């Protein structure tokens, strides 16, 4: 295994335990294999999407076809009205949900980091997070009836409510952690100068918390973008988001691999790109603060 990758540039071993029996070369080879396994399905999908005719039995598809952009042109070209509408819906829904979740999450996160509440801050944080543990079907069933009565089925506000609700815990947690790490003295100095609590929050704390604010925004956006289950029931016509199109890929013309992989990649590009930008906050956000990344 190591021999295949011997052409990789090598450097001096630096860490304390890479001096041990296994060579660095072997470790790098293992890392390359792991990375290949994680990435190759996407790579295969990208190649398949450049193919408009399918040939059976191709292990290395790139060598056996002429790449073209027909599938992509079909998604975005003249026949792509459905795609564009779904992408617009996904964008508006995710933006709205992100705005609500980040606003409420920032306020609550600041409160939980800076004040003591009678009920116990630990209980409050756990309470905010506990709803992430609930199986979504449990709230989906009543949402159908509530939304029907409130005339929110297949509307933008309805979809914003759904997505804001399940991304709010991420926002609360990321913001709370960040505010808690900011020095208390800044806030106290502002309060002594006569600023109100809210002015202090807006003028002093919020600008300092900009990195966390960006992270929270991107994470909420990415997770809203991926949401399928609620959308499949609550928004199946005018406000259909993009994952719904992906889910229905086979009903259009059987399973056309080039078509399916093109749609799959469009669905995946946005959240994956966003999350690569906020790697630093991902671990904390996803473990609800249990592990510092």
């Amino acid at each position, binding site marked *: 295994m190591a021999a295949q990758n011997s052409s990789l540039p090598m450097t001096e071993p630096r860490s304390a335990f890479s001096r041990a029996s296994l060579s660095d070369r072997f470790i790098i080879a293992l890392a390359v294999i792991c990375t290949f396994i994680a990435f190759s399905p996407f790579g295969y999908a990208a190649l398949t999407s450049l193919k408009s005719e399918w040939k059976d039995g191709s292990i290395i598809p790139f060598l056996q076809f002429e790449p073209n952009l027909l599938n992509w042109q079909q998604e975005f070209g003249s026949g792509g009205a459905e795609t564009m509408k779904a992408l617009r819906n996904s964008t508006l829904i995710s933006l709205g949900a992100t705005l609500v979740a980040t606003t409420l999450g920032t306020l609550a996160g600041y409160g939980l980091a800076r004040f003591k509440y009678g009920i116990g801050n630990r209980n409050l944080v756990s309470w905010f997070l506990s709803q992430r543990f609930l199986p979504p079907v449990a709230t989906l069933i009543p949402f159908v009836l509530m939304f029907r009565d409130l005339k929110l089925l297949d509307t933008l506000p309805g979809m914003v409510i759904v997505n804001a609700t399940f991304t709010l815990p991420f926002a609360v947690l990321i913001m709370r952690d960040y505010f808690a790490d900011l020095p208390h003295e800044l806030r106290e100095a502002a309060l002594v100068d006569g600023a109100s609590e809210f002015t202090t929050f807006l003028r002093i704390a919020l600008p300092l918390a900009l990195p966390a604010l960006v992270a929270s925004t991107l994470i909420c956006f990415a997770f809203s973008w991926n949401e399928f289950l609620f959308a499949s029931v609550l928004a199946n016509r005018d406000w259909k988001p993009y994952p719904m199109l992906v889910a229905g890929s086979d009903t259009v013309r059987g399973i056309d*691999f080039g078509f399916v992989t093109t749609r799959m990649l469009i669905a995946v590009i946005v959240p*994956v790109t966003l999350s690569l930008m906020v790697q630093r906050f991902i671990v904390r956000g996803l*473990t609800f603060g*249990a592990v510092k990344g």
Partner: protein
Amino acid sequence: MTTKTKRSDGTLKNNRAKYLFLMPGVIWILAFTLFPLIYSFGLSMTNYRLGRNPKYIGFENYAEILGIGDEKVDKKAVSTASFSAFLFMASTATTLFFGTFVAWVFNHNLPFLRQMRAIITMPLFAAPIALGWLGVVLFNEQSGPINNVLEGLGLGRVNWFIEPWPARLAVMFTDVWQWTPFVFLIVLAAMQAVPDDLYESAQLDTKSNWNLFRHITFPMIAPALGTVMLLRMVESLKIIDIPYSLTRGGPGSVTQTYVFYAYEKGLIGSFQLGEAAALAYLLVIVSIVVSSIYFYRVRERFE
């Protein structure tokens, strides 16, 4: 402004403004999570179907699912629950194993690992519904790359979507592929927190990597592994998108998860909302148990 009493930790008491920060979020969760949950419990006590008037039937739905009293146990609830239980254990164990291994590989100070690390996390953020469709392409019996590779290795082609166990494994592999980076990120963070001097002193006694891992790394990352195991367990109970797009629950209903069954019962076809709510509520109880263990473990972190 209200009076401020300064406390040693820098927080303020007797301050009404603090509720203005907290309340919007609290009200939101009360309205859109707690209220629906109570609503759902009420529904589970009725025989409600869409288009019919609901009637209160007490715990009859639960009795029907669990086979209490005169009722026969709901066979499909049991079979879908056992597939969910399979994922709960097998998928959690497999992601923990691979995630820890990948973290061990990446916990070396070598060139390119940082860049590769970012690539490895990509599956985690992709929409599961899209990954299910990706699986349809990859596992395709005739022209999918997985069967082509298996054949190339002389292992023969597998009927991923026709035979029960291959179908179950296809769902599991897709889930494992998506969630291994999650375990990887958390375990890697835990490994990087292990002080270097621990290794330095241990290396006086042993040169074996395996011994170093077993006696130093593993005990140090065990708490993080416990945390990530519980999170994976909770997530595995919620799996629906991947079988929905990858196998449609088939062949038959062998890859239908319990959540998928509740979804189908309440929201497709006959819309038996009362029964579906009862099915969902039983799962809520399981989730509460697992999450209580989780919050008990991490309680100090939130002070």
